[in-house]
């Protein structure tokens, strides 16, 4: 019942680098304590905000990719809301999206394989060369 989430939050610009790392460590521990897995942590660096948030004009963006249940993410959101250096956050559920993308990719890959097979003698690009010859050998 694990879902994939993307949590992005903005930290105040006047907070030191070590503080940001400490915050990140704190959040990751809260996720792992709840039984989730932090798949990826990406510090996107300082960016100018599109509008002023709590009187800050720029901020440090951090992106978490978390695989966890809903309750864990709710707890993480609660912590983000409470923590003072974090000025904005958004959590997006992406497992349905990933499923859809995987389906589309699989569909495209299967379609490409079907179209590559009959073109055995024709000049086909290198990767397709392997498939037709194998198919010919298998059928013969």
């Amino acid at each position: 019942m694990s879902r994939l989430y993307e949590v992005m939050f903005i930290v105040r610009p006047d907070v030191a680098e070590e503080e940001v790392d400490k915050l990140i460590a704190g959040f990751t521990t809260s996720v792992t304590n709840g039984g989730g897995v932090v798949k990826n942590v990406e510090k996107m660096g300082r960016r100018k905000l599109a509008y002023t948030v709590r009187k800050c004009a720029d901020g440090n963006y951090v992106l978490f990719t978390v695989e966890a249940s809903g309750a864990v993410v709710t707890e993480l959101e609660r912590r983000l809301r409470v923590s003072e250096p974090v000025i904005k956050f958004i959590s997006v559920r992406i497992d349905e999206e990933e499923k859809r993308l995987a389906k589309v990719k699989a569909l495209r890959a299967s379609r490409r394989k079907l179209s590559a097979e009959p073109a055995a003698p024709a000049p086909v690009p290198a990767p397709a060369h392997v498939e037709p010859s194998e198919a010919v050998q298998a059928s013969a």
Partner: protein
Amino acid sequence: MAEETTARAPEAGAGAPAQSSGQSSGPGSGPGPRPGGRPGGPGGRGKFFRRKKVCKFCTEKIDAIPYRDVRLLQQFVAERGKIVPRRLTGVCTTHQRRLTRAIKQARNIALLPFATRH
């Protein structure tokens, strides 16, 4: 359509540039020499002879529109920060809906503004 313009061009001579520019889909040209109500037009009143715009996402096979990709999203946002309608950008319905969702998410995380130019 092409024959008419070429037939008129040698005829009019000096007046050709003015006329042909009005005919051959000048941007935002209102009802020129052709009357409105022509089938296959965009359906609105403003631009008559826009050639069929194709959805950028369908042609480039972009499946996912992430809210993090600000440069991509900014192409579909007007100067004042408003989302551009799909009749102007030519995006298909499914992608326009995903795009709108991504733009609103980006606005919430301060990657895009809600409105500019106070």
